[in-house]
């Protein structure tokens, strides 16, 4: 699992910017105010135009493919979405509920499975990072189990729990625990020796070392682990629900496939994408708040 330090880069590069920057630099400013205005305009152009262009291209491409293959195009999907989201929370029986309920059900499974993974994974990560013995002890287990495809755990869950709901949560738990453990442990091994030397000189208690030095130092790594882990959980839930049934966005996709409502499948793809994006952004936002600046 890659360890990404949570420091979003300040510079947004786009393909267009080098050219525009050159023009801006060469132009002789009539006045400083005008120059600043130009720079702001160029920044705005660079940050708004390329993404908008990308989205436009995407929609055009989609329309073209829809035209050729017969899947619903952007307009048809949009109409269907308007109908679908006009009553997101209806309930017409245990297996026929509004899209809102399906999303919330999936989110609650992800929340439970991920929450358990964090509850167990974070302390484990600290132990593994702090004590070499624990690291050597756990290394073979982690290397063996981490690459296992999440859905391979589903039959075990079904066998043990005899029910779809806990089995799905189990799959989320087991597939999202690894990034948390690994990133937390990596964070602990990366705590600068200087900080630990302060603890040693002052002979701080193990509790103080944890709360004042280890935890704050590891937090950015931990949040990276959490971000990756929620990403995995959200990826996995759709597939798991397809297999287990019930209420949830994954099951809903499968149901709509059985009803041959292809526009709903496309809507589901957007919903999954957007919810995943929002989850990631929420954690990035949290990470920014807890990030500390060195020097």
């Amino acid at each position, binding site marked *: 699992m890659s360890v990404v330090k949570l420091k979003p880069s300040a510079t947004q590069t786009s393909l267009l910017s080098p050219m525009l920057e050159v023009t801006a630099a060469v132009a002789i400013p009539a006045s400083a105010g005008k120059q600043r205005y130009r720079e702001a305009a160029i920044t705005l152009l660079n940050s708004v135009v390329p993404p908008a262009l990308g989205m436009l291209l995407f929609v055009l491409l989609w329309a073209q493919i829809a035209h050729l293959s017969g899947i619903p195009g952007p307009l048809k999907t949009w109409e269907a979405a308007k109908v679908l989201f006009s009553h997101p929370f209806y309930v017409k029986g245990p297996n026929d509920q509004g899209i809102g309920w399906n999303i919330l059900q999936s989110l609650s499974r992800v929340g439970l499975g991920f929450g358990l993974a964090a509850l167990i994974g974070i302390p484990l990560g600290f132990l593994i990072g702090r004590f070499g013995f624990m690291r050597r002890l756990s290394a073979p287990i982690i290397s063996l189990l981490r690459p296992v495809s999440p859905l391979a755990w589903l039959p075990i869950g079904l066998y043990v729990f005899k029910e779809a709901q806990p089995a799905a949560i189990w799959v989320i738990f087991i597939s999202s625990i690894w990034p948390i453990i690994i990133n937390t442990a990596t964070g602990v091994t990366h705590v600068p020796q*200087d*900080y630990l030397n302060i603890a*040693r*000189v*002052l002979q701080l208690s193990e509790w*103080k070392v944890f709360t004042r030095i280890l935890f704050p*130092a590891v937090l950015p790594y931990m949040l990276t682990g959490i971000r990756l882990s929620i990403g995995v959980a959200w990826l996995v839930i759709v597939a798991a629900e397809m297999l287990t049934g019930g209420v949830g966005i994954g099951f809903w996709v499968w149901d709509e496939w059985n009803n041959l409502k292809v526009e709903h499948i496309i809507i589901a793809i957007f919903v999954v994408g957007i919810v995943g994006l929002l989850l990631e952004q929420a954690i990035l936002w949290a990470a920014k708040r807890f990030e500390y*600046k060195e020097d």
Partner: protein
Amino acid sequence: MQGFVQLENVQKTFRTKQGEFVALRDINLSVAQGEFVSLIGHSGCGKSTLLNLVAGLFDASDGVMLCAGREIAGPGPDRGVVFQNHSLLPWMSCQANVYLAVERVFGGNESKLQLQQRVDAALSLVGLTHAARKMPHEISGGMKQRVGIARALAIAPKVLLLDEPFGALDALTRAHLQDELMRIVAASGTTSIMVTHDVDEAVLLSDRIVMMTNGPAATIGQILPIDLPRPRNRLELVADPHFAQLRAEVLTFLYQRAGLAA
């Protein structure tokens, strides 16, 4: 007579992938109470290693190390350390960094208010009362180093250990902090051991300069007493022929004798 800090036949061997590496050998040094001693030598000779041994952050491979008559068996707040790169915890304000140390040492029998007063006193000693609530990344390198000194002094250590405390600073800031350190140490009478590679700094601040031979297996090559009267004034010393002579002695050692086995 036994020194306040006493090192006898101290040796330090590191176990590395290429086998045993003897960093220091035959270190004999006695530092008197209230004395200011500098360790000077070429980069990589083992100055930090020696300081870390006294701090208790490293274990000696051989020999005896005493501080205030007791064997050094690990780090402890009786020896305050000022680290080379300030080492302030970046998630705490300057005040909180100092408080962490003060709380550990005096928290047992003093009230929160008393602890806070100690923090305030330490920060005001280094002239940083106004920056108490600032985070480390909001202040300059020189200010950070001053907070580091305040943190080390706030716990009223028996010995102050400084590892190139001003190494990363510009010349003007360094001169300013040297003067401040001289004033603080003179006022508190704290026994101090400072690592430096700056000859002027060593002569200006020290009662004795411990000059180390080059590694590997470095040892003390020569000890030079600095008998300049205190308080010392850097501007007056520039014109002082005795200062120039002491300075020349250190330079001569560093450039002619440090490479020769002692």
